[in-house]
């Protein structure tokens, strides 16, 4: 047995995990091995269904009713967790191994105070009194940088913001000073600027407490920022592992290459260097191919070689780092530099006349307070300013992105544009006609057809009760594109071809489709009436990276072909940088900056844009960033600051003027505007947030 001071904290050997369903046994994790040293952070990365979360649950030996560890060992400080009794497990859980969860709100008990939930951890694991437990909890809340810990202790979870909740969960995990911390997508449910703060905190923890960590994420950029070593998983298996530097600079598995080709890195460009989606789909667990699981999707697949039998992990001995292993039968034969060359290069699309003009558009919601107190004071009605003085325009064939975090008003704007809500002020001209006050019921079929939308959530976008064919033909009929039954049918088939789906999808129902396929149908539906403008509200944010890349490319191909104006709503600046021609940055219902993509990503910046740029994780170890972490929470839309909306979190606050006065809109150039009190010259003087090395400076060059 290994002694406490030396040897790995955790060692997993040949772990196999299966789920038992009515359909039979489904292997979820196959031949998984890993070891974690003290103070080390290991990253597990992969798309949904690859088995990464199952590994975390197995380490806790918490498999649920239908999961089981089939074989292998999980040695925690030399003791096998798989063979522990319930009591032994209980003593380890929460004291020596803790876990941080994806959705902090769901992970906290809604009817117990934070104090109650924190204090029980040391109380149950150590022989200490309530007072000491309380003091420890307060101290830990301070350590996770929560302001006013005494107040937080008394609060119930719902009284805290998402970021605060996650800090409480982290504090809960650290209270007994564990040896190992499991983090299962700890920032996926949070906004980018909040995420940046949590990521920084997690990095601090491993430095300060020496806690070993296993960080699970689908986001390669986050893994790069937090981990020392990384394991890439695909369909239940680790396909590649290595140190961060080695794996990110010299990936060796075709799937890892594929993942990098799907991420909109700063070097990607929709015309000169488009994304390279991985073809095909993830195999279902019971339909995995023989040999290499990635075989059917791989460009280097050789029949009889790759599908001959199990492929083992091998050391990449020729690489720049000896501690780099890959599960590929042909990694020595592959020309790895070929992946770096841009393919499918396209011409930049031609931009035409203005299709959309928004001028001083505002949307207020009335909030009626029916309480007696409000009636007495006469403040019965308050206004939520969801959109305030929005002005921008979009031209034919152009892609305009609206960027902002949750609550910034971007979805409200989309609703007004679509006529699901009407504007309270200003105007929106689409093809010359004011539609800001025209609700969807009062629009003509031509107006409706010319302005369509692609929705965010694939599980929601199609009606589960109707066939695909029915749903698309209904649109065609409703818009009067075709009236003859046969013609409608032909048009549906043509649309299915356009979105690259087989024609027999006509008779399918939404539940028989994958998320990516549903989004494709959503795109087909939006383009059914030959719209002049399409609004895409986070169309790929719910999809896995490789699927998202394919859908993004498809959307842009169709847009280019039809010279459609695309209004792309997103929280993700990487995607925006990749596909937008012009960008509008929103914060708390207002536009803080707008301009062409190049203008937005280079100084002068609005301080919020600057922070947003810094917050987005980038999966390229040679790209350097200036670190700007925002303090505090997003203010509530019902009670926004009187002056600049960003004043409560702005690191460049000028003083009273920011709190009291609306910032002026300063024109940097025609089309590039920044709403800020800071003089433009001062804003121009800052360094770029992101620095991308030139090709010659790169290590792999």
């Amino acid at each position, binding site marked *: 047995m290994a002694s406490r001071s030396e040897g790995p904290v955790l060692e997993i050997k040949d772990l196999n995990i299966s789920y038992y369903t009515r359909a039979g046994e489904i292997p979820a994790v196959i031949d998984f091995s890993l070891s974690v040293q003290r103070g080390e952070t290991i990253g597990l990365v992969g798309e949904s269904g690859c088995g990464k979360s199952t590994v975390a649950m197995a380490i806790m030996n918490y498999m649920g009713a239908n999961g089981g560890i089939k074989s292998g060992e999980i040695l925690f400080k030399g003791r096998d967790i798989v063979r522990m009794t319930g009591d032994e497990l209980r003593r380890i859980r929460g004291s020596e191994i803790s876990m941080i969860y994806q959705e902090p709100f769901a992970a906290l*008990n*809604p009817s117990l105070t934070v104090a109650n939930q924190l204090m029980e951890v040391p109380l149950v694991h150590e022989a200490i009194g309530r007072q000491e437990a309380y003091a420890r909890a307060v101290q830990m809340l301070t350590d996770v940088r929560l302001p006013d810990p005494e107040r937080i202790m008394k609060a119930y979870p719902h009284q805290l913001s998402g970021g605060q909740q996650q800090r409480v969960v982290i504090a809960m995990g650290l209270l007994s000073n564990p040896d190992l911390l499991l983090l299962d997508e700890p920032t996926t449910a949070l906004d980018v600027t909040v995420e940046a703060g949590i990521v920084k905190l997690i990095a601090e923890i491993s430095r300060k407490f020496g806690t070993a960590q296993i960080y699970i994420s689908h986001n390669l950029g986050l893994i790069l920022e937090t981990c020392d070593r990384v394991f890439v998983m695909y369909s239940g298996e680790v396909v590649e592992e290595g140190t961060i530097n080695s794996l990110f600079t010299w990936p060796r598995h075709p799937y890892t290459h594929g993942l990098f080709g799907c991420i909109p890195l700063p070097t990607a460009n929709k015309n000169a260097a488009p994304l390279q989606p991985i073809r095909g789909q993830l195999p279902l667990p019971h339909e995995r191919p023989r040999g290499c699981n990635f075989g059917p999707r791989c460009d280097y697949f050789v029949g009889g070689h790759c599908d001959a039998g199990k492929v083992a992990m091998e050391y990449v001995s020729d690489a720049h780092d000896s501690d780099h292993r890959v599960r590929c039968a042909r990694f020595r034969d592959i020309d790895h530099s070929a992946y770096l060359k841009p393919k499918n290069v396209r011409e930049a699309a031609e931009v035409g006349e203005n299709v959309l003009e928004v001028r001083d558009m505002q949307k207020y919601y009335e909030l009626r307070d029916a309480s007696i107190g409000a009636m007495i004071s006469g403040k019965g009605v308050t206004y939520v300013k969801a959109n305030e003085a929005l002005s921008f325009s979009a031209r034919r064939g152009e892609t305009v992105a609206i960027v902002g975090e949750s609550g910034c008003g971007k979805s409200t704007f989309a609703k007004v544009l679509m006529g699901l809500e009407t504007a309270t002020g200003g105007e929106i001209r689409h093809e010359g006609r004011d539609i800001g006050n025209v609700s969807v019921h009062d629009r003509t079929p031509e107006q409706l057809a010319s302005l369509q939308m692609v929705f965010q959530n694939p599980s929601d976008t199609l009606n589960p009760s109707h066939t695909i064919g029915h749903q698309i033909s209904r649109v065609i009929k409703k818009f009067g594109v075709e009236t003859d039954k046969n013609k409608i049918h032909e048009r549906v088939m043509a649309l299915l071809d356009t979105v690259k789906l087989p024609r027999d999808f006509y008779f399918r129902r939404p539940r028989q489709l994958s998320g990516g396929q549903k989004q494709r149908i959503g795109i087909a539906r939006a383009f059914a009436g030959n719209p002049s403008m399409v609004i895409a509200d986070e169309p790929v944010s719910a999809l896995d990276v490789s699927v998202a890349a394919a859908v993004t490319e498809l959307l842009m191909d169709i847009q280019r072909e039809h010279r459609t104006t695309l209004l792309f709503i997103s929280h993700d600046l990487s995607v925006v940088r990749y596909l937008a021609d012009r960008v509008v940055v929103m914060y708390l219902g207002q536009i803080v900056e707008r301009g062409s993509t190049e203008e937005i990503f280079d100084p002068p910046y609005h301080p919020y844009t600057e922070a947003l740029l810094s917050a987005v994780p980038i999966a390229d170890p040679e790209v350097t960033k200036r670190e700007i972490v925002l303090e505090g929470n997003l203010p509530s839309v019902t009670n926004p600051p009187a002056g600049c909306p960003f004043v409560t979190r702005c690191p460049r606050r000028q003083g009273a003027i920011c709190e009291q006065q609306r910032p002026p809109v300063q024109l940097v150039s025609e089309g590039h505007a920044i709403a800020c009190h800071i003089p433009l010259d001062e804003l121009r003087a800052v360094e770029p947030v992101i620095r991308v090395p030139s090709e010659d400076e790169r290590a792999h060059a």
Partner: protein
Amino acid sequence: MLILIFKRIGFMVITMLIVSMLLFLLLEFDKEGVAVRVLGPYSSEEQRAIWLEDNGYNDPLYVRYFSWLGRFASGDFGESVRFKVPVSEVMWPRLWNTAILGFWVFAVMIPLSLALGILAGMREGSKLDRSISVLSIITTSVPEFASAVLFSALFVFSLQWLPGTSSMMDGFDFKQLILPVLVLVVYDFGYVARMTRASMAEVMTTQYIRTAVLKGLPYNQVILKHALRNALIAPFTVIMLQVNWLLCGVIVVEFFFAYKGFGALLLEASLNKDIFLIEACAMVAVFVAVATQTLADIGYTYLNPRIRFS
């Protein structure tokens, strides 16, 4: 929180007013009909006219309603046609008897159904869970009048353990209370148990229970501290609303076992068209129902910190 209580009570008052209006219109809109019911079908035209004049029935409808409401609010419900005494003299003792019956039903039903529901919901899909579920489906499928017959056939006719009627002619007799309580409990515990089970099962699948387990808490602490607190919020409301159901159940059971309770009184009044007694009984029944619903709402808010502090 205080505002919410006022709101709920306000709503309760409004409901009672509307119910009283409907009831008044339903029963007293036709004043000739009232006279016929009070004075009997053989009364003469003249007698009725005099009676109507004497009792203010020739006033406009709304004046009649408000004076009726005023008398009602002050506890003067009029005189029972059948018993020839003030309604309150008949009604309050009967209500007290029903309260005794109701107390015992709740005293047996709540612990039984909560215990079964929690046991079943703790391990969803287990054998125990399936057995409790099927048992509760079977018991809720036998309506009170049927189970009263079946239990009587068994305990009174075959085994001769218990008396077949519960009229309590010679004073209070606990033995006579057993069958009515049994019938009501058997029909109703299944519903509450199933609600508790559903609530418990749902809580057991939540992520915060997983958090509690992975914190290393002992199983009993996970259940008692983390699960029950959330799982019992929904059943609390369900139990409070059972008062409403009990008001229906007692009608059947009291009728069957000749128990001198409120339900039997209401039924008798309806069958005899004893108009003022119907009004009084219906208003009291609705008052009890609405009051418990109000309490249930307020209690629910109090139990649920998500609402309490928002």
